[in-house]
């Protein structure tokens, strides 16, 4: 799925990384606990989270993730936006709740396992 499609599906506002919207991602992960995110290395291109601090960006960097979606329209700090843009990440915010946002992307096929059809 293209990052641009994620933006459309989640009705999200783009905060940085416009130049990467046509990049493909294959899986996503949703958590507010960063070590839970760090536990699963599996092409997870997208991080959905309600957490707002610089560690969100660093965690995504460590995992080689390419896109972060802040849920529930929370407003990331200037520092987060700066770190994200310096490290080539797409950062966006969506009005959807974490559960809804995950459901929308999963239903649209992102990171869905073959056997689930």
């Amino acid at each position: 799925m293209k990052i641009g499609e994620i933006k459309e599906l989640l009705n999200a506002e783009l905060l940085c990384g416009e130049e990467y919207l046509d990049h493909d991602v294959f899986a996503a992960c949703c958590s507010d606990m960063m070590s839970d995110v760090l536990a699963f290395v599996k092409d997870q291109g997208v991080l959905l989270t309600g957490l707002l601090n610089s560690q969100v960006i660093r965690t995504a960097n460590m995992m080689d993730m390419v896109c972060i979606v802040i849920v529930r329209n929370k407003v990331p700090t200037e520092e987060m936006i700066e770190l994200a843009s310096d490290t080539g990440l797409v950062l966006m915010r969506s009005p959807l709740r974490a559960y809804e946002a995950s459901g929308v992307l999963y239903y649209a096929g992102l990171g869905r396992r073959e056997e689930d059809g």
Partner: protein
Amino acid sequence: MAENIRFHFDVDGENFTSAGEASVAVKKKLRQLGFPPDVIRKVSIAMYEGEINMVIHADGGTADVEVTDDEIVIILADHGPGIPNVEMAMQEGFSTARDNIRALGFGAGMGLPNMKKYTDEMNIDTEVGVGTTITMKVYL
């Protein structure tokens, strides 16, 4: 062969916002040195978890990374409270972190298990009231 490459960092225990900067710097350097992405990811995730632990559990410490011909060695040393029961601390989900740390996105009790998972060797040398030194190796 050329001399081993070494990096040293002081990890500030007062500043949660800057925690992880050493790991970011190491990741960047390993990229420049041309290591494979999976090796870089293992080293940087393990080091990042350890660095965060030093900040949230031990008031900071030092991080040393050495790149040899056949492995990358990460040594994280602190003078924090030490770990009373290492076996318990190594279990997934075990954490002594309080709500203030959990609100920052840490305290799932996954850091040490992740460090073990992403490295080929891990040794914890710890003494209550004295400090903790964690040595991790990723084979090349």
